[in-house]
């Protein structure tokens, strides 16, 4: 058999399984069929659905550690807006979403719909687990399904099988192939495999090129109970030559991972092909329909069942840290930054990539690192289909916080797995993990300056000047404190009084003159130099008294006659004696200034003047108070 290059591009997988292919029908017939289905659905819809119901089904209730079970959650009669089921996370189990499918049926006028969500559960730890309740939210209501019980036993509990390599079937072998124009078959890349080893299953539909195919319906993939099934991409179409005839081939492939040991069966796959019914057409089919829709017949095709011998993983040479990972992998570890800082987080990303059941790759063995605080930061899986097989990468992230500075050299991260191709256990380790951890202390700055490395982390020494700042624990200073701080209020009060006083003086000039008269008088007396000539001293003394009396009496005394001055002082209620002394002093001054006598009495007169000013001030202040000035 010759195999041609695949034609055109890949088509969606659903193309084989019942999608209505309008391009293969004549237009009027297609239109009629479409209208018929739409009207049928319109009638059926009001018939309504039953009560929403959740059904849970698990393919195996007891597995070993490392094996995988398939959980199907079927939502019946839920609305289209129903949310995906919530499967509670359970420690010891890894749960993966494996997609969902919709099933709509119309039987005896009764319409029903269901959505089947498929989950794959990898057993990681021994024990009995109750998975559930699985909840679904629809139109604001929460529906609960029955919990599922799963028992997980220790890994490798099953009897070891004889070591036999898987046998690969020849591609497109003509032996046993039906020599018909239309046939289907399944192919396996091996019939013997280890637990969780990848097996590729292909479903092939052969259509001889001279055969016209209207439609393909009722596709049922081969049943794969006991396997974790992974789609291997979209449908592939290509052409092959068999015994001189050309065939168009439609191929769908899956990767299977056995979840239990023993002999497992791949069930038959089914498909219905619609081809022209030439005999009926010849018998007088409708001209209008061109014999296309009614002049055709269905050919159901069924593939044969196949058996696969699944061997448990070998018990001998099983390493200590093996946790059930099967495949061909390589490991790589790297830091998320080229340098680290003491006390600051740093991510260590460990990637395990290769071919195999990537979702079930177990966590690598983390060494006991020193000088670090370690926090688990989760894992991520990315799966892709490459060369007709499942490959991918699972990354594990650890957050590390260095607690000391300097070059940090970490033990590598290792993973142990079973390599089914080589039929032996293997351990792979990452490369050396080294990074420079910068100290916490900052650089002192400046060009070329280096950071200071913190070598120790201890407290500083005690104080030796302890006696200097000692205070009594409860000093009794509360009242003292407040008393002292009342002083500013006194200052403010004094200032306020002074301001008011100044305003009063500004409004009353005569009062202002009186207020400062004594002070100015004393200042003038102090300025008189007794060493000068007698006439000069007498003149200054006389002027000082005249100004003083002018200020007090609010008069210009200098131009007054003695009699007028006497009257003015008498009006000011000055005693006769004091009046006499004042006038006597002024007379003496005039005599010295304009006559020749009294020059020898200067010192005595100066002393009298000082005393006289005090007496005059007292008398004039008393008289002013009496007068209400």
């Amino acid at each position: 058999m010759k195999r041609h290059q695949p034609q055109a591009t890949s088509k969606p997988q659903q193309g084989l399984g019942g999608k209505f292919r309008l391009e293969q029908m004549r237009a009027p017939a297609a239109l009629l069929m479409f209208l018929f289905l739409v009207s049928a659905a319109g009638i059926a819809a009001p018939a309504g659905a039953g009560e929403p119901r959740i059904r849970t089904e698990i393919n195996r209730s007891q597995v070993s550690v490392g094996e995988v079970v398939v959980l199907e959650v079927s939502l019946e009669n839920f609305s289209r807006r129903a949310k995906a089921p919530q499967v509670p996370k359970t420690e010891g189990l890894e749960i993966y979403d494996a997609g969902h499918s919709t099933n709509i049926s119309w039987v005896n006028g009764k319409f029903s719909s269901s959505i089947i969500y498929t989950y794959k559960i990898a057993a990681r730890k021994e024990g009995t687990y109750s998975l559930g309740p699985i909840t679904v939210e629809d139109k604001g209501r929460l529906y609960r399904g029955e919990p599922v019980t799963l028992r997980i036993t220790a890994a490798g509990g099953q009897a070891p099988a004889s070591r036999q390599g898987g046998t690969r079937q020849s591609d497109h072998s003509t032996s046993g192939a039906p020599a018909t124009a239309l046939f289907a078959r399944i192919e396996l890349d091996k019939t013997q495999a280890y637990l969780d080893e990848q097996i590729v299953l292909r479903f092939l539909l052969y259509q001889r090129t001279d055969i016209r195919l209207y439609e393909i319906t009722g596709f049922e993939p081969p049943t794969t109970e006991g396997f974790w099934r992974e789609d291997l991409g979209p449908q592939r179409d290509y052409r092959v030559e068999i015994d001189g005839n050309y065939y168009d081939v439609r191929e769908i492939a899956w990767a299977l991972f056995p979840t239990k040991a023993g002999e497992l069966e791949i069930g038959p796959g089914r498909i219905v092909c619609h081809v022209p019914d030439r005999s009926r057409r010849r018998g007088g089919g409708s001209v209008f329909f061109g014999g296309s829709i009614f002049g055709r017949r269905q050919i159901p095709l069924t593939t044969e069942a196949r058996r696969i011998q699944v061997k448990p993983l070998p018990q001998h040479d099983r390493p200590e840290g093996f946790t059930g990972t099967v495949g061909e992998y390589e490991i790589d570890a790297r830091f998320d930054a080229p340098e680290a800082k003491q006390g600051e987080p740093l991510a260590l990303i460990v990637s395990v990539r290769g071919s195999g059941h990537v979702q079930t790759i177990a966590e690598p063995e983390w060494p006991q690192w020193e000088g670090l605080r370690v926090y688990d930061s989760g894992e991520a899986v990315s799966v892709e289909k490459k060369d007709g097989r499942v490959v991918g990468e699972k990354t594990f992230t650890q957050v590390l916080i260095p607690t000391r500075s300097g070059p940090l050299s970490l033990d590598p991260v290792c993973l142990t797995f079973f390599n089914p191709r080589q039929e032996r256990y293997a351990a792979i380790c990452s490369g050396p993990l080294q990074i420079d951890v910068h100290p916490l202390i900052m650089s002192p700055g400046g060009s070329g300056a280096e950071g200071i490395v913190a070598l120790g982390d201890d407290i500083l020494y005690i104080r030796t000047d302890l006696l200097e700042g000692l205070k009594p624990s409860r000093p009794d200073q509360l009242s003292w404190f407040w008393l002292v701080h009342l002083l500013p209020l006194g200052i403010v009060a004094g200032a306020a009084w002074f301001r008011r006083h100044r305003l009063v003086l500004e409004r009353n000039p005569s009062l202002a003159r009186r207020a400062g008269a004594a002070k100015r008088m004393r200042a003038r007396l102090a300025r008189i130099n007794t060493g000068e000539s007698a006439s000069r001293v007498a003149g200054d003394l006389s002027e000082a008294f005249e100004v003083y009396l002018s200020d007090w009496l609010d008069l210009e005394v200098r131009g007054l006659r003695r009699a007028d001055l006497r009257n003015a002082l008498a009006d000011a209620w000055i005693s006769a004696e004091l009046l006499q002394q004042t006038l006597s002093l002024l007379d003496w001054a005039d005599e010295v200034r304009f006559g020749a006598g009294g020059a020898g009495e200067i010192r005595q007169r100066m002393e009298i003047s000082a005393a006289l000013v005090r007496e005059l001030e007292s008398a004039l202040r008393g008289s002013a108070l009496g007068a209400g000035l």
Partner: protein
Amino acid sequence: MSHACQRTPMRGRGNAAGLRRVTMRSAYLCCCLLSLAALPSAAGAGMAPPQSVVESIREAGAAYEASRYGEAVECYRQALALGWCSAALYYNLGCASYKAGRIGWAVAYFEEARRLSPRDPNIRHNLRTVTSKGRDRLPEKESSRLLGLLSGLLDSYSPSDVVRIIVALFWLGALVLAVHWTGREALRRWSRWGLALVALLVGLSTIGLMLKAYQIASAPSGVIVVEEAQVRSGPREGETVQFVLHAGTLLHMGRPAGEWREVWISDQMRGWVTEEAVVALIKPRWLP
């Protein structure tokens, strides 16, 4: 020349000279009064400690030198019991407690020292070092850069510092007001600006005082001093253990109930511990 005429030219010269004189007098008065304001705080500092306190401190220093840390702790505590304290004394007590392996007590004493002298770098360093040795990592509250700056600013001032600032501003305000009322026109113009500035500073200080009060009210009031303290749901042995705290963890202390004390770290993490497991921090002083 009339009397009024004699005074007029003198007033011109007298204005400048008088202004200088009044300014000098005001400044001198301000200095005198401000130093008077500091008198109450200086009053306690000026007192010499009695001989018994001096001896206790000397013995403690000698014991610390000789690495007899437990003995040093007892001697320092004796000085405290005699009614004398200082930030340095609490600091030394913290050092001796830490060296004696009592992390909880070390945290308590360093915290006291920090409250008395918040800007002391040695105290801050030792407190950070000792706290980092604690086993409990409390969740860090997220805060903005502005709040962090404000918190840092408040941390560097004790309540008595804030009161001291307000009292000084009170004095300054009174003096500026006095100058404003008694001074001449030129001085009064300047004193108006001075009054506005003092009012602004008093306002800011009052806000600072309120924030400080809030900070003190929301700060932890106790420390776990035992190696491991079980926090129970009620003040009885039989109650459920909610969580476990370790030496050096700062927490809030609530009401007592017999030999038990209510404590909490957050709204979610609260319960009761025995009185011996926790020590209350001294409330901060408001008066200088």
